[in-house]
């Protein structure tokens, strides 16, 4: 068992090095500075992990380098920030999105009938294109003169609840009778696109359909939701804003993560899936997508930076000396071994650790994790076992984007929310993945923590030794170079 011994030796050396470095920093910086800088490093590391985990999972399974990952981080922050501060925009647009998605989701309902149609070859080719065109026209009609910019502007006005619980004036929305036809048209538009996607007349697509009941469930649920949200467009945002701030923040985190998941699934299905045979195009496509998303956000909300208010649990002035005191008072800082540290950053560290545990359990204990680990090696064979690998790709991509979006909303209360906020995290995410080893989530965690610490201590030394602050940024790249020279596959990467 020579191999085993070698492994143990490496682990011992690694632990010694880590403790050596930490002890050196500790004795150099002194207790106070050491604890403060370490906690800052862990905070950064947690955010790096949330970005890098998605990157590494997606790359490991699909060999896709997602250059739009930073934009997903940014969008997560925007989604969560808006839900928390003023969800008028979200609830104003939601019925439209739901209606279109409900339209798309009728595919399983209509496909079994459509593929059985008897069409000539030329019509088989022409009909989907005509359906797409019709869908596009109806879709454009549906959103004609929809004041999306005005709706988006509402997000810039934080609505404060007064002591009586009354809300400041919400910007008036289109009256229901005029708004109503938009979701209806969008549903039709979605259904037309769905009909095109179903490949009418293509007999090779004929499969035994599932029972009608099962096929009806999803579109009906979505339609009911569409109708529901059409009616509660205005009252829903009031309801959210009157909620307890902590609960609202928890919901904002969930909304941002869910939004990331759905956005990821949408992007994978519509844009990445057709390009798997041309991997280089995926790089260009995601890079382009990141620009498009950033510009879109700028158009809607201007290239301004917003500061999200911290939820009440982390917002009251004052310093708590114990965790119990913090939870009781909602203090904004807490004293840890005599060092004053923002409580919200502790929450971010916790978030990173919890998500690491979640990803670890997912990968080692669940069937999905098993499929991912197998798919990394040989997706074709996984497919031959009867597993829909395409769907697994979609889920993994969506999951990766959801993690990035979670990082975004996690960062929103202490980073300015602005269109470029994800860029730096994407860069660091890629460096993390290279250090940790492509495809390894454990590596992503280790790499993220190393980078976070390097950044924090880099800042510390820059300040103390009066060096340029860019030394902190450079330190991460230097670490990457050292790792690449000593272990080109990354700390936890596999050689093959």
């Amino acid at each position, binding site marked *: 068992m020579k191999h085993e011994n070698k492994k143990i030796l490496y682990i011992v050396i690694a632990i010694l090095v880590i403790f050596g470095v930490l002890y050196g920093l500790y004795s150099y910086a002194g207790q106070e500075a050491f604890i403060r800088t370490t906690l800052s490093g862990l905070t950064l590391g947690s955010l790096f992990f949330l970005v890098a985990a998605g990157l590494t999972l997606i790359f490991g399974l699909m060999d896709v380098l997602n250059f739009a990952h930073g934009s997903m981080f940014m969008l997560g922050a925007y989604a969560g920030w808006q839900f928390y501060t003023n969800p008028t925009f979200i609830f104003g647009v939601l019925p439209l999105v739901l209606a279109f998605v409900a339209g798309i989701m009728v595919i399983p309902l209509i496909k079994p009938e459509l593929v059985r149609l008897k069409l000539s070859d030329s019509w088989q080719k022409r009909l989907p294109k005509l359906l797409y065109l019709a869908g596009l026209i109806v879709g454009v009609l549906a959103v004609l003169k929809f004041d999306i910019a005005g709706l988006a502007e509402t997000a810039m006005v934080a609505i404060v609840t007064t002591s009586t619980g009354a809300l400041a004036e919400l910007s008036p929305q289109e009256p229901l009778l005029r708004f109503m036809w938009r979701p209806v048209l969008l549903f039709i538009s979605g259904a037309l696109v769905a009909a095109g996607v179903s490949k009418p007349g293509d007999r090779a697509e004929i499969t035994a359909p599932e029972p009608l009941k099962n096929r009806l469930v999803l579109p009906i649920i979505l339609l009911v939701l569409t109708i529901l949200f059409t009616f509660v467009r205005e009252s829903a945002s009031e309801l959210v804003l009157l909620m307890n701030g902590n609960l609202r923040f928890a919901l904002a985190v969930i909304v941002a993560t869910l939004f990331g998941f759905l956005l990821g699934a949408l992007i994978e299905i519509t844009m990445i899936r057709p390009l798997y045979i041309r991997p280089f195009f995926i790089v260009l496509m995601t890079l382009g997508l990141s620009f498009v998303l950033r510009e879109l956000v700028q158009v809607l909300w201007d290239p301004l930076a917003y500061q999200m208010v911290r939820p009440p649990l982390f917002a009251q002035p004052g310093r708590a000396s114990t965790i119990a005191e913090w939870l009781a008072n909602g203090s904004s800082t807490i004293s840890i071994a005599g060092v004053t540290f923002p409580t919200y950053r502790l929450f971010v560290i916790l978030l990173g650790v919890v998500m690491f545990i979640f990803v670890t359990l997912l990968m080692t204990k669940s069937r999905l994790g*098993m499929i991912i680990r*197998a798919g990394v090696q040989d997706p*074709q064979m996984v497919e*031959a*076992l009867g597993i829909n690998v*395409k769907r697994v790709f979609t889920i993994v991509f969506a999951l990766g984007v959801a993690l990035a979006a979670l990082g975004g909303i996690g960062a929103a209360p202490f980073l300015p929310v602005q269109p470029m906020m994800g860029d730096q995290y994407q860069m660091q995410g890629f460096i993390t993945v290279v250090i940790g080893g492509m495809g390894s989530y454990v590596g992503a965690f280790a790499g993220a923590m190393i980078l976070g610490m390097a950044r924090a201590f880099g800042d510390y030394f820059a300040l103390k030794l009066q060096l340029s602050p860019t030394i902190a940024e450079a330190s991460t790249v230097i670490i990457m170079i050292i790792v690449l020279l000593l272990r080109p596959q990354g700390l936890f990467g596999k050689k093959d």
Partner: protein
Amino acid sequence: MTELTNTNEYLLSVQSIDTFIGQFHILEGVSVNVAKGSITVLLGRNGAGKTTTLKTVMGLTPPRDGKVIFDGQEIQGKRAFNIANLGIGYVPENRAIFRALTVLENLKLAERNKGDLERHADFIYDLFPDLERLSKLKGNQLSGGQQQMLAVARALVPENKLLLIDEPSEGLAPILIQQMMEAIRKLKDTTTILLVEQNFIMASQLAERYVIIDDGKSVHSGLMSDLVLNQELIHQYLGASIQAPISASEA
């Protein structure tokens, strides 16, 4: 055996398929019929297109032309996972087991319905007792023979009507070849098998029917018992591969 040839009921019927890999025309009209409950073997030289035939049936290299009919249903053009879920198990060449997964996980992954493995565990561990003992080892810690057994066992986890087995004896020691042959013979009682096998002695002992594939075309088919007597045919299409005794096939 005569019963089989008389019933015209084929579980799998591959009808003059054309398959391209990239721009290479690998299969140019291959037809194979597999009767229910039989073992049919694809014979032919290296590179003749035997493996591609299996992959085409499986949907991994979809055919451009021709039909694949399984259990009365046209399956060409369907995606591989759909085809597998109709009840086809695939044992690829080079024992493509998952190296990062344990033996147990490799088997679990092949489940199509919850509890598939529990239902068939006795049968599987009866055929390959080693696998139960090794269940906690990772795929990359297994010997070549153990990997091959795992690859076959994996195809037995779900309820399969047809097994496509590609070169089960490749690179195995003689004693393991014997064990593998025993296992495949036992499988015959419950399923139908389409086999690719270079080892002619093994093939001739196992299979009832054969199809010879040469240069991407199926050129000859019939009863194995007839082929063994037809030295001329063997020589023409299989050449060197049959002169190798079992022991020589050890890698």
